[in-house]
């Protein structure tokens, strides 16, 4: 019989007019903790699956209340990687925020850069060039494949399958080579600029990507054969961590978590951006909303991303030599050789570097379909070159919030499987 030792009346600190923090009793009384009355029952034990744990995919901390082996309740504690991104954003020009976005969701850096550029361009009303849209689609889909590869590899390790981790990371290294050839960095890419890209793709990039797209499905088929009809994998994942469609909408889930529960909602189809409506790809949707369906949805998404990449590549062939940056000199730095020789270009160069790109007064929200879900950047600007507020709508943060609901009454090892299936990245959760 688990005893409730102190009666807890929840109060919350509020800031009263004089600025002192005082305690205000909350209207809501905590539901009394009903002690479990069974004679064979044991006392509940609090276990920390804490910040330093191999299975929490980062510094997430789960306080699990255990009755023997079954989980009574999971209380996630986050904030162990809170680095003050949004505060830092208010001290940066728009182009200086792009390196910050690599480090929020560090599994799909290029997709974050594209999202920020799109949000800033929506705020400033800038139209980007055709070739730039195709290159940004390629960047987003490469990031989606990389993120799903890391997810499938680490989730496989969590449930005991180590070999696919090595296969998938080998494919990921090939994509990292392409990413590094394009942006110079494996992980912190800072690919986009407001109004364009940092650089066009190097020659040999298209050949490398085409070669990757041709051989990648073969590895996926091998991993598919390892997992999909594997008795252990199905036993551990089917029917575990189920969330229904309406619940998923009520919990504001997004991305593979939402689609696995049967809700056919994908930002690329629902609110097309970057010309996604002209690409031919379909969106995988599950039915049961359990871990197995999330795996199937993410695996299928990798095939679809591969299809998009192939279509984008032959579009790129037609746009050979087209400009990637907007021609407006107040937004895009003039080329270096002209900046040194032409007086006007030097003035534009100087003004942009010293004062940054000014945004009109107003606010803009732009959501993109990131591998984890719908990532949205919300800029509020007061006419200066630094945003008043840079809000990140974090998909993993909102997806993780439903973990306590998924983990009621499951076994302890299922908590690890459910936590892995949500595909969380702590950099984006804690911002």
């Amino acid at each position, binding site marked *: 019989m688990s005893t409730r030792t102190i009666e807890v009346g929840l109060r919350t600190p509020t800031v009263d007019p004089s600025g002192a923090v005082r305690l205000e009793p909350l209207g809501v009384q905590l539901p009394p903790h009903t002690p479990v009355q069974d004679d064979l029952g044991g006392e509940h034990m609090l276990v920390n699956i804490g910040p330093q*744990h191999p299975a929490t995919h980062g510094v997430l901390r789960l306080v699990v209340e255990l009755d023997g082996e079954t989980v009574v309740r999971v209380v996630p504690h986050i904030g162990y990687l809170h680095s003050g991104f949004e505060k830092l954003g208010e001290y940066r020009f728009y182009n200086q925020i792009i390196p910050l976005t690599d480090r929020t969701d560090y*599994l799909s850096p290029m997709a974050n850069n594209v999202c920020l550029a799109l949000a800033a361009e929506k705020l400033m009303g800038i139209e980007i060039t055709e070739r730039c849209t195709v290159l940004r689609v390629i960047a987003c889909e490469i990031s989606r494949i990389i993120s799903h590869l890391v997810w499938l590899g680490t989730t496989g390790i969590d449930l005991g399958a180590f070999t696919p981790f090595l296969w998938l990371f080998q494919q990921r290294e090939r994509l990292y080579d392409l990413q590094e050839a394009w942006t110079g960095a494996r992980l*912190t890419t800072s690919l986009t600029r407001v109004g364009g890209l940092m650089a066009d793709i190097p020659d040999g990039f298209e050949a490398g990507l085409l070669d990757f797209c041709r051989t990648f499905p073969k590895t996926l088929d091998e991993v598919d054969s390892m997992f999909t009809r594997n008795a252990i994998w199905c036993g551990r994942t089917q029917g575990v961590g189920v969330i229904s469609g309406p619940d998923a909408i009520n919990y504001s889930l997004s991305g593979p978590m939402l689609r696995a529960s049967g809700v056919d909602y994908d930002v690329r189809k629902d609110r097309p951006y970057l010309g996604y409506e002209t690409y031919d790809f379909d969106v995988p949707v599950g039915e049961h909303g359990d871990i197995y369906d999330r795996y199937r949805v993410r695996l299928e998404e990798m095939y679809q991303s591969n299809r998009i990449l192939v279509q984008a590549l032959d579009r790129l062939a037609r746009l050979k030599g087209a400009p990637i940056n907007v021609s407006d000199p107040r937004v895009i730095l003039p080329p270096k050789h002209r900046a040194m020789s032409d007086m006007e270009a030097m003035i534009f160069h100087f003004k942009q570097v010293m004062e940054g790109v000014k945004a009109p007064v107003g606010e803009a929200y732009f959501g993109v379909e990131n591998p984890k879900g719908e990532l949205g950047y919300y800029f509020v600007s007061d006419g200066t070159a630094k945003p008043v507020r840079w809000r990140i709508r974090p998909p993993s943060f909102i997806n993780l919030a439903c973990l306590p609901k998924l983990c009621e009454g499951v076994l302890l090892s299922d908590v690890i499987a459910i936590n892995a299936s949500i595909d969380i990245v702590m*950099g984006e959760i804690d911002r």
Partner: protein
Amino acid sequence: MGLSLPVGDAGTEVSTMSPNWVTTRLDFLANWARSNSLWPMPFGTACCAIEFMATAASRFDLARFGMERMSYSPRQADVLICAGRLPFKLAPVIRRIWDQMPQPKWSISMGACASSGGIFDTYAMVQGIDTIIPVDVYVPGCPPRPEGLIYGINLLQKKIKGESLLDADLRQEHLVGPDGLFQPARHIDEVSEPFGNSVHQTRSS
């Protein structure tokens, strides 16, 4: 990295504590065994942890340097690799894990954020984990390339090869002082001073 005499290059000076032949041979044996079987405790927090995973995966294999076995509990760990930025909320965690690691233990601060707070000169970020725990090797980079990390690990192995068993204060436990700080307060403020680009970022408009 097999059984070979230590190369007498400038890098490794044999510690002066062991004059006679017997202890140097024992030192050599112990250091050779320790440096080639370092069990890392991957304290992976952020992006550097992903690069650390890539280093441990098949392409840049860490197993070549004897670091095959990752130990996620401090009880069997030899080297604590802080891969990623360390917020203040995580400071007591790394401090407790470092205290719970048995001697002999070393630590690598992987990445610019762990070594100096990196681009995060904000209210929530520890400006360098050497204000919290003693650090042996700092690996620069954001994130350091796998080769960079492997070079840092090689440096640590070279440092271990230069140690001596008789040198007692190498294995001293530097605990948090009575004033609740690991380093003197003045030193922490000096080390955490904003430098370079951070200096101009006081105005937010």
